[in-house]
């Protein structure tokens, strides 16, 4: 069964991925003009914008996911199917009624 993350764990991961996400966006916009120019040269340069959006979706996507968990906005777990409770017969013990 998947491990359910606590709000605190999500907060720590949110900060980590948030910093990484800020670094990626910071780098893109610091070098916005040369990056946009190189990425739009066409041909094999097409791999660059595609690789970038995969990187952004991993880093920023993980940040977003942890952010919603840290804020307490979680998916509702599907109702668990009720299994018939296995009741153990009480062991017969010899008792002495004195």
């Amino acid at each position, binding site marked *: 069964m*998947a491990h359910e993350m606590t709000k605190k764990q999500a907060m720590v991961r949110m900060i980590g991925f948030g910093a990484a996400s800020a670094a990626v*966006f910071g780098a*893109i*916009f610091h*070098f*916005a*003009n*040369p*990056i*946009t*120019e190189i*990425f*739009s*040269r*066409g*041909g094999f*340069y*097409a791999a660059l*914008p*595609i690789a*970038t*959006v*995969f990187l*952004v*979706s991993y880093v*920023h*996507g993980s940040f*977003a*996911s942890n*952010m*919603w968990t840290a804020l307490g*906005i*979680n*998916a*509702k777990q*599907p109702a668990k199917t009720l299994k018939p409770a296995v009741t153990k017969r009480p062991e017969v013990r010899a008792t002495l009624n004195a």
Partner: protein
Amino acid sequence: MDVALDSLRFIDLTTSSIIFLFIVGFIGGLVSGFIGSGGAFVLTPGMMSLGVPGTVAVASNMCHKFPKALVGAIKRFRYGQVDIKLGLVMAVSAGVGVQFGIKLQRMILEKWGPSGSNLYVSLSFVAVLILVGGYVFYDAMTADKGGKAKAGATLAQRLQKLEIWPMMTFKTAGVRISMWFTIPVGFATGMLAATIAVGGFVGVPGMIYIIGASGLVASATELVIAFVMGLGGTINWAMHGMVDIRLTVIILAGSLLGVQLGAIGTTLVKESLIKFVMGSIMLIVAVSRALAVPKYLAELGLMNVDPGTVSVMDKASFLIMCAALLFGALIIMGSMYKARKANAAEEEREAPVHV
């Protein structure tokens, strides 16, 4: 390092345009995560209103669409809502539909010029959205209070009974149907995607009413189709150098937040709400596109319209389109808030009382 950008292709970004793209990205992502598609119909004209050329707007929009769909699909796969096999089968036939749609567009462009092409796009928008959106809306309104599907032999159930080789089983969707019924749905999805950029408006209802998947599975599976088609389209556009990566990552920053929230939302609300949101958005967008029709009729010389009226109708058309997206987002967030409140109250009631 300072490099001057080609001002014909790439706009200067201002703070207000960054905020606008981020917000539209977030709202579009929220709606996509919930109903499987949406956002693109506002983002492309939205970018064009900022001065972005049409091809760059379409390419940058598509480049943000496929990673967003991927993140949404992974999230909803974890909730057990995605039928990967159905998504891939649909994506293949959708790929053929896209090629056919592009050829048809080119043919119309050659014969009747840009106005004829725009008229064809707008009329397709209005016809498909009114017919399909109207039916989805009607179905959502007549669903029972619990949000369950209605009883009785539906078209999908009748099609599933026809044993035409090859039969395909889609486990998550819980459907066994002939491949020949999945192909037209995928083809129409692709054709619509090539025409109006929102294939999901046909793909999701097609998966529900023709193939027989639930609204939850259909909207989640649409994200797989959007990913495959978006990736293919992006490779094509990027090879022609049309992607403005700055616009793409700004929209992605908002939409990755929204798509996950929308995906969470599907687990909280009743299923008929997905159909309600989808049907409503489609009908509002139909009104918006209908307002654009007189302009193209006038350009083709088929109708006399005052240029002032055309300009007002153009603005109204864009605003109504934004309103459609905003309406969907508000319904989703409102319903999520109510569902969370109800869940919290339920948990409180069920919690053991310690005396």
